[in-house]
């Protein structure tokens, strides 16, 4: 789960990390009002979960009220890589002499958290990581002990951070690690961490992503998620408790188990189709979940056909078949053709139960995917 910049900055500020003065705004009038309070220049920053906001036109620096209004009107309501901007953060522009990078994440290869510091922060940090990995100093952290103070200092010195600000940067890094640990972060970073002419250090951006599996013990952060309106269909999937990812194709996909659903997507592509989504109904799915899954996929207007692929281990084929029948019997006319493939536990019973006036039944995974891709192509042509 990702926090918005304004949410992450609040968490950072509460923990004692210096951040620029700012306020959230949802209308052009509010933007101007906040900007007048803060004093120009200010930055108007789109609050959406999209990387590279600046390059995409989602961040503007303004010098007076007219420019503030213009920027607000441009950014509020704009479409940024598929997300509509409803909120902007209006923030004091920091007059900086240098941009640093500090972050904490999990190094899954090592199975340990790692803290990172670089003197070359800013919009191109990913290129720096790619082209000159040595420009980012790294220290692995033993999770049983946490980040030792010497490790924070070492990372800062190794990164070549100027002496005047080294102490402050090490202290911010320590605070970030504490937040990462206490709040179950998956990625916590400041980029850029700006250095001013009088050697002050200020977090000009803030990233805080939380481990979704730990939200049960982070109720305060879990609440923030609801404010972050995602894609309508993804919100619906959350409500139903499905693992769902929307894609841009027209063959809808429902299955059980992440690996098998991914494989079904890959096969749709392999046979010349385009997957519309990833939807994992999980293990042991009962009839109601199946009905909800079909409702999800039919709610995506891009979908021209659906392939339903279940390999039963703990999921029983007869339960799935009943769910499919129940879901489809609600329609006077089936919205889009549905191809079903059942295998594993009680698959034969399931195939018996399926109403073949409502669905097309296929024996093999490959056969089912090809059939669904064909249907999608026919529907798409109409």
């Amino acid at each position: 789960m990702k926090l918005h910049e304004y949410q992450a900055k609040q968490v950072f500020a509460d923990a004692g990390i210096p951040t620029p003065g700012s306020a959230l705004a949802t209308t052009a009038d509010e933007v101007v009002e906040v900007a007048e309070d803060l004093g120009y220049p200010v930055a108007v920053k789109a609050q959406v979960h999209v990387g590279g906001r600046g390059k995409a036109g989602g961040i503007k620096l303004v010098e007076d009220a007219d420019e503030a209004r213009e920027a607000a009107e441009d950014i509020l309501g704009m479409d940024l890589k598929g997300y509509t901007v409803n909120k902007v953060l209006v923030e004091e522009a920091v007059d900086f002499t240098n941009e640093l990078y500090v972050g904490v994440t999990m190094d899954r290869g090592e199975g340990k958290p790692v803290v990172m510091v670089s003197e070359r922060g800013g919009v191109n940090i990913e290129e720096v990581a790619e082209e000159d990995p040595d420009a980012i100093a790294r220290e692995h952290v033993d999770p049983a002990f946490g980040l030792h103070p010497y490790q924070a200092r070492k990372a800062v010195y190794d990164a070549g951070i100027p002496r005047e600000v080294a102490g402050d940067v090490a202290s911010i890094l320590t605070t970030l690690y504490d937040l990462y640990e206490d709040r179950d972060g998956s990625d916590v970073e400041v980029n850029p961490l700006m250095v001013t002419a009088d050697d002050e250090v200020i977090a000009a951006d803030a990233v805080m992503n939380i481990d979704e599996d730990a939200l049960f013990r982070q109720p305060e952060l879990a609440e923030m998620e609801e404010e972050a309106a995602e894609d309508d269909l993804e919100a619906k999937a959350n409500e139903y408790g499905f693992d769902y990812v929307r894609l841009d194709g027209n063959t809808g996909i429902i299955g059980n188990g992440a690996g098998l659903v991914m494989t079904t997507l890959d096969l749709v592509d392999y046979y010349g189709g385009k997957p519309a989504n990833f939807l994992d109904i999980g293990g042991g799915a009962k009839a109601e979940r199946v009905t909800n899954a079909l409702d999800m996929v039919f709610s995506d207007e891009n979908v021209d056909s659906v392939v339903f692929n279940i390999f039963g281990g703990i999921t029983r084929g007869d339960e799935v078949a009943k769910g499919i029948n129940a879901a489809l019997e609600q329609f006077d006319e089936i919205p889009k053709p549905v191809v079903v493939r059942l295998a594993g536990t009680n698959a034969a019973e399931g195939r018996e139960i399926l109403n073949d006036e409502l669905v097309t039944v296929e024996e093999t995974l490959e056969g089912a995917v090809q059939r669904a891709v064909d249907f999608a192509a026919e529907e798409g042509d109409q």
Partner: protein
Amino acid sequence: MSILVDDDTRVVVQGITGGEGKFHAEQMMDYGTNVVAGAVPGKGGQEVAGVPVYDTVHDAVDEENADASVIFVPPAFAADAIFEALDTDLDLAVAITEGIPTQDMAKVNKRLQETDTRLQGPNCPGIITPGEAKLGILPGNIFSEGNVGLVSRSGTLTYQVVDSLTQRGIGQTTAIGIGGDPIIGTDFIDALELFEADEETDAVVMCGEIGGEDEEEAAEYIAQNMDTPVAGFIAGRTAPPGKRMGHAGAIVSGSGTGTAESKINALNDAGVPVGDTPEEVADNIEDLL
């Protein structure tokens, strides 16, 4: 022959009084697994599925000589259950639980380096030696005895591939699901090493998926250390960057690491054929045997 589990394995089920724990304890016993005890704090003295329940794993080990555990404990308490298993002298702990916080697993990972107990999982379907024993939730009826080892990050994808093999009359020595989380105990290399050392295993199927670099590292291991032929499969070719595809570990990061392409290339370079479809994986195994 087989790896890790057989009909001598004595199993304690942690969380046996829960719905899933009880159901799968019974399923395991129906398959022939030697389940000897359950362990659930506060439930010591009860009997579930015909076996005694103890308050601690230590008691189950002391009283019933258990040498392996299967963990069906909810995510909030699962890391603690794993720590408890690692504190005994069990040979193997299999964690089925999905959704354990990653930072909990980082702490478990640290502890693993100090003990001799092997961890499999979490977020995995378990392990099965056909005809002898299964520890976990795999559907026993699709497996058959034979000479192909299988290691996979995904449960249902394993079933799909095993089903193709079994229908062609190709049986399995042992199938092991290592789990879909970012931090796991037994990894591809550990399992491949065990299969390489197993005389009955004549070929190995390795099913990977996007995310991390485990498949790339496994490819290097295969090239340098294995005589037993390996056939591969990689799920997630069409996954977009930055989106978690169900498994917490299945995510292509923004900087382009963990892609299916990188894994397929690494395996091909190691002489491992990678099937485009699960059926092609079975074709490749037929060719290799």
